């Protein structure tokens, strides 16, 4: 309701008075929030904002839903950024991604225009809002977790949201010490942020084709599972698509991204959002670890935002195109076969009637 009123006010003021959003700098959360409103106002035909949860400090967790409105429930590609506060390139990528897909959509006859008829993109520019805001304060740039307080005798803040999902929770690659960067929480989904994602997607999971969660750094594409005792049933396919995406990414600026399960190429872990998505039945689930390899680490220079986003976009789009093709071109083939069958039957009938 509030958003609609704000929207109307801004429309009256004229969209032209709003400053152009600079995609090549890092933005504090208030600016990202304003930008989201601006995206909505500029694209009311295909964008809506959905508030699907609240952080520990009671801030809204919002996603942008982008796609043509058909009235029916459509298939979904999910992307979330900023689950770890210090990984600033991640929310920057979500902003870039949204800008790109909207730009491509507006090109008449483009592939994106066709995709948006059949699919919706659900993009959360900043999932860990409290943590991200905290990382903008003096002296806490390298904060990772959310901002829930410690419990019992442990006075440190923060749960690692990517160890808090309900999939082999608390088993490996996680700490029970609340002062630790990989503290998994008091229980699975003890964090309101992880609980919000889970609750929201549980209801829709049958329609979710793809789950992409964006992190930094390390230049990796991780496939499920983080727990080495689990193997995804479509592991081979996930690797094939992931390796092809990495090959596309390398073409953009020559950067190498390694592909594999987390226990193989990074470290074992449990309770990750990527693992939860795969276990929930979402067939394609990937973690992207963006630039760089440790030179700047979490403090990737702003001059690298654009190239980092360009290569990540090509990787993400490769996966999205594959997932879309698999889902909808197969449907097209079935429809075509049915049509041919009808035509053939008609010809035979006509032929029979002719004699």
């Amino acid at each position, binding site marked *: 309701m509030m958003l609609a009123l704000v929207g109307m006010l801004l429309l009256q003021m004229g969209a032209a008075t709003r400053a152009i959003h600079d995609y090549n*700098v890092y933005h504090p959360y208030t600016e990202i929030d304003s930008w989201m409103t601006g995206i909505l106002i500029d694209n009311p035909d295909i964008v809506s904002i959905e508030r699907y949860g609240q952080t520990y400090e009671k801030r809204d967790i919002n996603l942008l839903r982008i796609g043509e409105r058909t009235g029916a429930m459509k298939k979904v590609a999910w992307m979330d950024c900023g689950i770890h506060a210090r990984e600033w390139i991640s929310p920057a990528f979500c902003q870039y991604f949204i800008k790109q897909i909207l730009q491509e959509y507006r090109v008449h006859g483009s592939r994106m225009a066709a995709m948006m008829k059949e699919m919706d993109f659900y993009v959360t520019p900043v999932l860990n809002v409290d943590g991200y805001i905290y990382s903008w*304060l003096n002296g806490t740039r390298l904060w990772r977790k959310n901002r829930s307080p410690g419990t019992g005798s442990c006075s440190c803040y923060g749960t690692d949201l990517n160890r808090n999902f309900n999939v082999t929770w608390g088993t490996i690659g996680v700490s029970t010490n609340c002062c630790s960067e*990989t503290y998994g929480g008091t229980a699975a989904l003890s964090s309101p942020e992880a609980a919000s994602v889970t609750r929201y997607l549980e209801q829709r999971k049958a329609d979710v084709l793809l789950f992409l969660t964006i992190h930094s750094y390390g230049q990796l594409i991780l496939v499920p599972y983080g727990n080495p005792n689990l*193997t995804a049933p479509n592991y081979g396919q996930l690797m094939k698509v992931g390796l092809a995406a990495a090959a596309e990414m390398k073409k953009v600026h020559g950067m190498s991204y390694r592909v594999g399960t987390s226990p193989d*190429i*990074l470290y074992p872990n449990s309770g990750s959002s990527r693992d939860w998505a795969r276990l929930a039945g979402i067939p394609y689930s990937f973690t992207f670890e963006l630039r760089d390899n*440790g030179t*700047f*680490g979490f*403090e990737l220079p702003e001059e690298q935002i654009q190239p980092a986003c360009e290569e990540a976009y090509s990787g993400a789009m490769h996966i999205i195109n594959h997932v879309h093709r698999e889902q909808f071109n197969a449907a097209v083939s079935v429809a075509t076969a049915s049509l041919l069958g009808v035509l053939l039957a008609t010809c035979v009938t006509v032929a029979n009637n002719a004699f």
Partner: protein
Amino acid sequence: MRNSVPTSSIGKLLYSTNTTQQQQQQQQVSLDVDVMLTGELNPNHYPARRAAQVVLHHLNTRYGSPYWWGALRQVHKATAEALGDSGRKYSLEVTLQDQISGTKETCTAEVVFPGGPAGGPPQVTTSYEGKSEINTQAQEEALYNQYNTSQNLLSGHNLPDSYGHVAPGMEPFWHLGGVASSFVMLKESSENTLYNMAQVVSVTQLATENNQLRFNYDVLLHEMVSQEIIHWKLLASWSPQEGVKASQMELLPKCHHCEPPQEH
């Protein structure tokens, strides 16, 4: 190319050949995480990568300077073997890159992680013979002469800053911080760690002593496996002739109760 199959103490195996990354990935089988692998390792997997990172820390302590700062770019081959007294040795072929000039080199190396209760830092030997193409001599001498003074001692902080920027003129001292941190990262490394320097919190020049420029560094290291940010202080001394040395390395405790005030 024939697959070489390593030995492993428990069941599951991991093997690789001289094939493309894609083929290597497709040949892998599942890993029992507690198994310490021996034999040929997948060069894209974490055990080889962690050992290779240790090689880079070693090379930086030997060859690093304000104008040469090496980073790992690729692992081509890796094998591991168990030694007596539970030590383990990795043999590696890696490509490293000077992060300043971009020059790449390939070399072989051996990393021994000592076992036993005493532990101790890894021991590294390499075939690397020193920077071949880029001659940093002139730049190093110029920097040395510029700062070999008792006046206007240098100081700086947050290299890089929150936005990834390093203040103009401070880049050599960011590089020097990275190289000096390599002494700490080398001695702290094990098969269960992967270190990078996250940030120089502060650098303060002290008076030159024994012809070495000297700087107090306050650095934050990022340890990837635990995801911890670890705070170290150290004294870095440098001259073009002697290279970089680090001393008085001190771990500072993680400050749990130094939370800055909330923004609201």
